[in-house]
């Protein structure tokens, strides 16, 4: 079981950030999900572009403070940068920019882009014979309203992209009833499971699970 200090440390980092967004629920919904993910991901903060790393694409670019806090805690950039969040002098915007923030794989904010990108990355790793490397992409439940996601879900399931894992942070923010998200993903050929998005053991087990199809972790928070 994950110890509380790590989570507290992340909350302290978020509290250091400038502006009011640190009080928004969206800044915390992904906290445990991303924290545990970075315990599983093979990445090197000293060499963010290490070719043999696992890739993580935060598709849901909104409320990125938890993501920034995890990156800072893992050493991708100094924690002091959080004090310049959303300011003219800083590199940390309200949506992450891969060309400014070390460790950020893709610039996001407009919803429905990360999953198709992740499918392309999954294909590209396979084409480079990087067969052990994995691609994780995180969306929100409401983000799945966007049709581009379902194009990519259909394609990845059909292509059996087993190096791809979709994490859906389900905080029931969708105004369209999403029903059983894991069940819908399974209908598209994915190996999908629903877990408690605050339970580190469940999250870790779900991330480490491999299948001969793309996998999905629906994390309810």
């Amino acid at each position, binding site marked *: 079981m994950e110890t509380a200090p790590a989570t507290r440390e992340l909350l302290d980092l978020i509290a250091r950030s400038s502006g009011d967004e640190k009080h928004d629920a969206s800044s915390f919904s992904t906290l445990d999900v991303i924290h545990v993910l970075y315990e599983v991901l093979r990445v090197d903060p000293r060499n963010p572009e290490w070719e043999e790393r696992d890739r993580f694409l935060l598709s849901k670019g909104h409320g990125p403070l938890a993501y920034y806090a995890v990156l800072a805690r893992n050493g991708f950039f100094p924690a002091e940068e959080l004090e310049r969040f959303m300011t003219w002098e800083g590199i940390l915007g309200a949506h992450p920019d*891969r*060309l400014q923030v070390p460790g950020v*794989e*893709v*610039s996001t904010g*407009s919803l*429905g*882009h990360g*999953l*198709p*990108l*992740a*499918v*392309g*990355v*999954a*294909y*590209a*790793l*396979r*084409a*480079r014979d990087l067969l052990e490397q994995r691609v994780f992409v995180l969306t929100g439940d409401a983000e799945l309203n966007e*049709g*581009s996601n379902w*194009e*990519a879900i*259909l*394609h990845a399931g*059909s292509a059996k992209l087993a190096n791809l894992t979709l994490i859906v942070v389900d905080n029931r923010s969708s105004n369209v009833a999403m029903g059983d998200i894991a069940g819908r993903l399974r209908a598209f050929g994915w190996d999908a499971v629903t877990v408690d998005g605050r339970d580190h053991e469940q999250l870790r087990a779900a991330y480490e699970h491999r299948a001969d199809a793309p996998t999905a972790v629906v994390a309810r928070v």
Partner: protein
Amino acid sequence: MREQAMATVVDVFERDEEVALIMADISLDFLRPAVEHDPRRAINVGIMEQSAIGIAAGFALEGFHPIVHTLAPFLTERPLEQLKLDFGYQGLGGLFISAGAAYDYGQSGGTHHSPGGVQALSSIPGIEILLPGSPGETDLLVRATYANGRPTYLRTSVVENAAPVELAPGGLTVVQRGRDLTVIAAGPFLSRTLAAVDGLDATVLYATTLAPLDAATLAREAAQAAEIVLVEPLYEGTTAAQVSAALAHRPTRLLSIGVPRRFIKHYGTTEQHDRDLGLDLHGIRERILGFL
């Protein structure tokens, strides 16, 4: 042009292991050799153009040179935000090759027309836009740009010029020099434009790169006379702002000739549409003579 583009794509795909090819259920027969050569980087995504662009950008994130192909409206207008954000904003390069330009599919109705595609793409900072006028130019431009590191759009068309042109670097080529008028003819509209100015003492510049327009060549080669005519197989005025900016240092009168900004409701050949839209050589000549 389309067949040449596909043949060249297959050739660069087979020669360069860094090329990835993304198809959206179009031109599959032409591109099958690439799939047979290396199916790991030749992907037919199906009929999903938003994801076609996103998946191509995923390849680009990993250092590949993606080439994406489908019909013009489904490549330029439907996934515009993907082109803008997944390529432009991310700082990634990719080559996007369309078939079925403007009203090439003259019997298919407005769903398959895209005279506004280039204007839509022009809103993406840093994009390169290419309008070859012959198969040979298409081959040259595909090879020259597929690995240029920028989002690049190459528009093929069933309309071709009567003869290929030896292209100048920069994409604006001097075809003839004159004193009374400067005419900029884009892509496959060169031949009819040359015929339309027959007998006039006109400088004719041939534009195969519309973005960025070769402003230096235009400023240097434009005739002294103020009259400037832009002829392009796109919505009227698509490139006018770039022409005006290149000539801002001198007096000009600019006439933009292009596809009128209305939906096309007739079904017919491209020649029939040309006549109806005032874009055959007679229509173009009448507009120019009236302007002068």
